[in-house]
């Protein structure tokens, strides 16, 4: 059984006099113990909202509806009360955020921000907690940890801050770590170091990792399984190798085609996906990607595309997928009809879309796919 099983997760923000906005529209994926899973997609595709919904960290506001299931180790995280959720957060599931400076409290020393997790979940106090905190900082590669414990976030460099946040997240050896764009705010050399650190940590401790990113380079280097999101839905799920070798969903094909490659021939042009994220069809009316899709056929519009699950447990939501090179046919194991709640618009289609959750915006990265 999977460690985390997200089924048909949906998040809707309803606002007065406006059509409700579906930030997440039936996302399903699962994470096995020790596995590294990627959630990939453009800004506003619902990656961050998915993770915040699982953690129960969406800002409590009227009009917010969270549906579906997120079963962690037999418990549905969406159904439990606030107190049990606080017990699980930080101890069993921890999270790392995008911007390390704003994610740290500016007026509290790093030491206290680390030890407060230890005090809360492991009952450690005073000297013992400080010692453990220093060890944690040492483990994430912060030199001179004893001195750093007394310092404030503004006295640390960007990479150090992200390391400190990682130290807080792994303080209780959680079974699941969710990293929401952990390298976006850092420069490229530091990005590589932080990814390396995360890789080492999950390998050594057997922690499962959900890596949320817009950056295919990050996914290529780390993830076992990858879920590609578009318009608040998973449009393709596959293991890393098959996904990069033989992407089936035209959106995944487009994503891979728009990444600059070192091994591309001279003068070869990049192939951006035509149109913009605003050109989006609400799922009930068909495939959300159809307006931008190069392989669009008539049956793309009308009803949401079914989820096709193939023999190698890949899945894609497309009626006209990219063909497998050299293999004329494939064994389709299961077809799950797509369903969608009518009457709402996907988040990406909303003009001047104010991110319902801070930290949704992402900048494109120039890193290439290795």
């Amino acid at each position, binding site marked *: 059984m999977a460690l985390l099983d997200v089924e048909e997760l949906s998040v809707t923000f309803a606002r007065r006099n406006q059509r409700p906005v579906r930030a997440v529209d039936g996302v399903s994926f699962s994470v096995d113990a020790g596995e590294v899973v990627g959630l990939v997609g453009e800004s506003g595709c619902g990656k961050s909202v998915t993770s915040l919904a699982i953690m129960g960290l969406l800002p409590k506001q009227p009009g917010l509806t969270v549906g579906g299931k997120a079963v962690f180790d037999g418990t549905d995280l969406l159904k439990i009360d606030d107190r049990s959720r606080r017990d*699980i957060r930080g101890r069993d599931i921890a999270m790392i955020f995008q911007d390390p400076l704003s994610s740290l409290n500016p007026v*509290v020393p790093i030491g206290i921000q680390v030890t407060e*997790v230890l005090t809360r979940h492991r009952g450690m106090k005073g000297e013992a907690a400080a010692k453990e905190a220093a060890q944690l900082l040492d483990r994430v590669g912060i030199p001179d940890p004893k001195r750093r414990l007394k310092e*404030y976030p503004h006295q640390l460099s960007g990479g150090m801050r992200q390391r400190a946040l990682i130290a807080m997240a792994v303080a209780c050896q959680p079974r699941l770590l969710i990293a929401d764009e952990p390298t976006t705010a850092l420069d490229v050399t530091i990005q590589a170091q932080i990814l390396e650190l995360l890789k080492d940590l999950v390998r050594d401790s057997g922690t499962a990792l959900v890596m949320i990113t817009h950056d295919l380079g990050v996914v290529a280097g780390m993830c076992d399984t990858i879920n590609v999101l578009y318009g608040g839905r998973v449009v393709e799920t596959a293991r890393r190798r098959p996904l990069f070798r033989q992407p089936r969903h035209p959106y995944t094909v487009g994503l891979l085609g728009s990444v600059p490659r070192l091994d591309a021939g001279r003068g070869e042009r990049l192939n951006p996906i035509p149109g913009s994220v605003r050109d989006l069809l609400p799922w009930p009316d068909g495939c959300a990607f159809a307006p931008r899709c190069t392989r669009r056929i008539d049956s793309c519009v009308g009803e949401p595309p079914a989820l096709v699950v193939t023999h190698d447990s890949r899945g894609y939501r497309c009626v006209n997928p990219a063909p497998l090179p050299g293999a004329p046919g494939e064994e389709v194991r299961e077809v799950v009809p797509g369903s969608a709640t009518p009457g709402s618009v996907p988040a990406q289609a909303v003009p001047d879309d104010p991110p319902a959750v801070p930290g949704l915006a992402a900048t494109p990265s120039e890193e290439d796919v290795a």
Partner: protein
Amino acid sequence: MIRFIVRRLLQLIPTLFGLSILLFIWLRRLPGGPETAILGERGTPEMRAAIRQNLGLDEPILIQYGRFIRRMVRLDLGTSISTKREVTTEFLQRFPGTVELTITAMVIAIGIGIPLGYLAARRRGRFLDHASVGGSLIGICIPVFFLAYILKAIFSENLGWFPSSGRQDPTLGATRITNFFVLDGLMTREWDAAADAIWHLVLPGMALASIPLAIIVRITRASVLEVLNEDFVRTAEAKGLTENVVRRRHVLRNAMLPVATSIGLLTGGLLSGAVLTETVFAFSGIGAFLADSISQRDYPVLMGFIMIIAVVYVLVNLIVDLSYSLIDPRVRVR
């Protein structure tokens, strides 16, 4: 730190110098003079001239100013024209009352304002929020003297819970040391005198607290709302910390920064006297005395009091700046 304090205190000197020039010009330009206040409308021009000569007001203004500066350097503020007592004595007798009143008002304003502002922010859009925002609007709008009279009518005259005027019951015959009546009572172990002085502070303190309270509620609420949206609060929640720790360590500490600034400014303002409240409750502080001195054209009192108030204001703000660096490590005093 020490250098910062010394530099700020040295900055006081040019500030006071400039203020004294402005004050001097402004006071002398007021129509009429102390002789009118003393003689009324009946004085003959000769009597007026005699008084002016007696007070040294007939000399050229530059000479008068020079004399004033010479005295100031020796920390001598002169003698009041109307009470014939040393200005310093007058000040030391009245200022403690104002300080006690200010402290009472600020304790009420902070003690109610910060928790109320915090709760309003947490219950945003619900009844408590609307009630406190609306209530604070009323608090700002309502004239202080009107509120003072209402408080006096209800709690003193109708219910008889609190005394209606003065700083202490004179029949107690309390010993005076510092003229801080509460402090004196505690120092001399005259507990009944201290309690009576506190009792006398409640109603004027409440009246005076109304505007600072309203301002603190609003600033706290706005500041907490802003901090609640900060990423680090989400981080704290993601760590599974109890609500109590999130609130105290992560939300309130950060939300207090703008509140601290406004508390400093409000305290400084209250210390310069509360004319209306002091008048309604016949409370002997500097406010009412200062107002009288203006109508009496009591130049030495006005000059002296306003100069000291300026010093106090600067000191209060110095303390606020120092406390700021305690709350926020990013602010380093240099």
